[in-house]
């Protein structure tokens, strides 16, 4: 009995049948999609990593208080969305590797180093990947904001802003326009200051919660500056 689901597209990209079509074998899938959206923005001397706190699966919400930002060091925060089981294991592995590095090198890993390490950790599972979309936000060695975005198998690059997770396709064009000033004619390219960036992130998540069912409940913002990491929680739609 084919289960009616909210996903309109099957694995091969074609539209799925929305009603019973005949006997179908369902194999056990080790993956599951738990929703959630993550966003990171890099400024001149700050970085912001924000995520919603909803944990869902299919039609159910498992938790309204499951943030997806994890603090790694004093200058780096990672946001992981996708399959929650893999997110938890991956962050445990990263924490362990950070500790080992600290013990053998007597210093904390820099954001760029963490990004390179994460790329190899993810590629180490190339043939049974971690189903996690990662975005690292932090300060680089010069104190400037840095955002590194990853795909599930470890391809990464440094960006100024990036959205990942279920509402990423909705948020990324908005960020391109508002932060990157793309696709606009005759606008002044103003540099982004911290207050404006935080306000933009809040507005953007409110919009995402309106249109994406897997995003909502609350927004957790982590602001990384040289003084440390500040956390803020903002309520979002709960429906």
């Amino acid at each position, binding site marked *: 009995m084919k289960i009616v689901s909210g996903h309109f597209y099957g*694995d091969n*990209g074609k539209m799925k049948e929305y009603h019973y079509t005949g006997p179908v074998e369902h194999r056990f*899938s*080790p*993956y599951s*999609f738990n929703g959630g959206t993550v966003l990171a923005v890099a400024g001149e001397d700050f970085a912001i990593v924000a995520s919603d706190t909803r944990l869902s699966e299919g039609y159910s919400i498992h938790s309204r208080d499951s943030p997806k930002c994890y603090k790694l060091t004093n200058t780096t925060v990672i946001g992981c969305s*996708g*399959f929650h089981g893999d997110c938890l294991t991956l962050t*445990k*592995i990263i924490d*362990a*590797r950070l500790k*080992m*590095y600290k*013990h*053998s*090198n007597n210093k904390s*890993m*820099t954001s*760029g*180093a963490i*990004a*390179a*390490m994460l*790329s*190899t*950790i*993810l*590629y*180490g599972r*190339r*043939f*049974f*990947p971690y*189903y996690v979309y990662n975005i690292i936000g932090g300060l680089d060695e010069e104190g400037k904001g840095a955002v590194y*975005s990853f*795909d*599930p*198998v*470890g*391809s990464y*690059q440094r960006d100024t802003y990036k959205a990942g997770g279920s509402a*990423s*396709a909705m948020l990324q064009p908005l960020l391109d326009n508002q932060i990157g000033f793309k696709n606009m004619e005759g606008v002044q390219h103003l540099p982004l200051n911290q207050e404006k960036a935080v306000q933009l992130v809040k507005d953007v998540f409110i919009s995402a919660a309106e249109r994406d069912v897997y995003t909502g409940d609350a927004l957790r913002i982590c602001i990384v500056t040289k003084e440390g990491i500040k956390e803020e929680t903002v309520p979002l739609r709960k429906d």
Partner: protein
Amino acid sequence: MALQDLCGFKDSFLNSRWNFPASHRMAQEDTSMLFGKRTRDISSRGLSWSNSESPLHLYIPAAEYLSESPIQFGQINPNTAPYHITPLHQDSTLPFLSFPPGFPPSSSPSVPLPFPMSHGTTTLAFMFQGGVIAAADTRSSCNGLVACPASQKILPVHSHLVGTTSGTSADCALWKRILARELRLYQLRHGRRLSTAGAAKLLAHMLHPFKGTELCVAATLCGWDGGEVETCPLDRLYYVCSDGTRLQGALFSVGSGSPYAYSVLDGGVRWGLTVEEAISLAREAVYRATHRDAYSGNCVDVYHITSHGWTRRDREELREERLWRKVGQNLVLNLHLSCFL
């Protein structure tokens, strides 16, 4: 390093490589680093994993080729290795890592992936009297979503070798990195750079164990062998694919936009092109391909390889081109209309 010796950690030289911090990333910005001027930051070496006991055991698919490849590289006696590459040869025995049985899987993976990987591109390379030109678009797409509009598809391997990448971006980035490391090791051991043909053969053999898996790398290696006077002028361009293809040629285009690029290139490529003509031809080919292929777009990167090494042209936004062409076309149309009136 000391901790490893005390605990008797079994270390694969690949594992320790992956533990190095970002400073050992392939030097895309500074290719001079690849030729002996780089001093390894000894204090920043990380610990590596023991093979089987650790629950967080990290296995690298790359190690597979060491036990199965016919080429023996990395087999020097650890006692005679100079200090700089000691961490790469802690273990004299191969293979280092215990792979799960059936790895790499010989048929399609039993676990269907829930997400698509990045594919779709236009890359091209051709050679002419002034060297080799490599060009590519910069769009990285994931099943309909543009994952990155500004990715880099042409990766320098060393000062005289550049590779265009097509296929899965994670695979291409990693294998280029591995290739760069192996070429550097060859250069240190033999005192000369490996030729483009040799690099192509090396890459093809490294990818061979993964034939049949979902690894997808289709690269063209563009290089210059020898000094000012080339040892073999025809041997600058190779196409290597993860399905086992390795071809030498004068003109290649790879990716979903390649048919469109081929049509433009076939019409214009000659041995006697000047450098400016060749560069504008390459840009035109990529532009035409991005115009018609949905999975190619955004900007175009052009690299030019000569006896002095590679030079990179600034990335250009193709949208401006389109606007200018439209203006030009409108002018021509107006002229025609006025003729008929």
